[in-house]
């Protein structure tokens, strides 16, 4: 337990320096997220990416954390704009791979993030890997477009393990559903 704490201390210090954000044990402060929750469409071809960034929180998040598309083990990997929990990438899995011995949950909530390199928005399925206790590495928290749990389809606090062999949460993944 103490070892875990020391790790987390060092981890969060690193993350703090990198992003100059306040970082908590469980929550990584990501900043912003997609406001588009079914009420309006995202413009397909934004006239000005800067202008879009001012209006679109998913874009603003990507800008604020300097989102990148190469390292899925960092909280500022572009898909994690609304991810909540420990990254499967740091636990022997990946954003679309459950670690050995865990069980992918068929259920999830679906959000969306902006890819900083092509300026396009992608639907992301935030599926949990389940069946054994937490893998306590790489805690990240994004809240892009995330709503309270009375709107479950848009909430990331829920243990999205319905349908897995057990409802025990192991880690969080972020699979791309498609390009909008």
């Amino acid at each position: 337990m103490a070892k875990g704490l020391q790790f987390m201390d060092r981890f969060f210090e690193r993350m703090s320096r990198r992003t100059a954000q306040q970082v908590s044990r469980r929550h990584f402060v990501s900043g912003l997220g997609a406001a588009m929750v079914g009420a309006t469409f995202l413009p397909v071809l934004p006239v000005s990416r800067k202008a879009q960034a001012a209006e679109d929180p998913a874009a603003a998040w990507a800008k604020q954390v300097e989102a990148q598309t190469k390292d899925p083990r960092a909280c500022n990997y572009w898909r994690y704009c609304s991810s909540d929990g420990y990254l499967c990438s740091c636990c022997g899995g990946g954003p679309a791979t459950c670690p050995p011995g865990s069980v992918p949950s068929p259920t999830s909530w679906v959000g969306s993030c902006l890819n900083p390199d092509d300026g396009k928005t992608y639907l992301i399925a935030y599926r949990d890997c389940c069946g054994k206790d937490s893998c306590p590495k790489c805690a990240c928290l994004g809240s892009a477009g995330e709503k309270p749990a009375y709107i479950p389809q848009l909430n990331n606090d829920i243990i999205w393990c319905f349908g897995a062999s057990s409802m025990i949460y192991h880690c969080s993944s972020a699979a791309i559903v498609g390009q909008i």
Partner: protein
Amino acid sequence: MKRTLTSVAFAAACLAAAPVVLADELKDLPASAKPLGGEQHNLATLSKPYPKRVYVLEPIFPVFVAGKIWVINGEKQDIEAVMSAGYAPNFAIAPDHSQLYVFDTYWSKGFRGTRSDMATFYDPLNLTIGADVDLPKGRFLVVPKKQNAEVTPDGRYLLSYNLAPATTVSVVDTKERKYKGDVEIPGCGLIFPSAGNRFSSVCSDGTLATATFDANIKATITRSSKFFDPDGDPVLEHVGIDKKKGMVYFVSYEGNIFPVDISKEKPAFQPKWSLLTDEDKAESWYPGGWQLIALHRATQKLYVLMHKGPKWTHKQAGEEVWVFDAKTKKRIDRIKLKEHAISITVSQDAEPYLFTQTEKPSLITYNLKDGSEVGEVEFGISPYLLYVDGD
């Protein structure tokens, strides 16, 4: 050996007031088992409830399968006890302080096997378990939120939210210590009890549903019209609440307060008001955190965790606590926090303290008379929810 000594010591302590008396029963024990002279082990119990005792519910995220509830002496700034709990647990205090309730989920083989959900009844002073009542429909598994488990104002029923995926509330009779049934609340969540047989819930379309149930848990549901905008400005899940009066103060993503009177069968919605002046908005202040708002009932003051951040940072820890008069809707104080905090509560006495759960993690207490720090207690890895006697 230690265990034998302790049990023998208990026996010895039970037999006589004087610590070092060997009763006849002990003579047959081997010499190694005979208690040494000196101290006999005794067992502490909690003192009677008092307003500044804080119960801190900790889902331990790195070891989520087990949780804890820390009992903190807010006056002496000390740990009084720690309770064990299960997966994503929840907690409630009987209004008359006669029981503590823990809502637990376990698996028969630790992290796998047959699942059981239950409401566990604890004696509030010696923290022994009096009963556990099975919740056959299960319970909602989520990062713990206060309003997913409640007790009716008369203490008669426990109400435990479930999403499976139908949204219902399981009802447990605390007198009979039995599960009685489930109330369906289609498309809604959270529990705000308003009477012995009535509670309200927030719905995904911005309305408030009110369920009234009979002894057979047969319920009728009524709905309000839309009172908040779930798309642009949803209300957050932790509230300022006066359960005795039946007042709920919702706080929203954009920093609006929605006061709702649930004391009668039909909820009455008071006009919303903003926590933010134009200057505050220009500086990008937003409410945020987890248990981010508290109401001091006697003075009708609202305390809200605030941080600077754009919208959609609603879980970001607060750097300040702003104090509002709920009647005049004006801000009357700003408390700069020594450490950023995710959850707050206030004691409900005449000289209240503000308890803040920081990210360190630690519980930092402020005297609300002058905003001075009373103390800091460090414990746990990821404590999350704060409860006080008189909540």
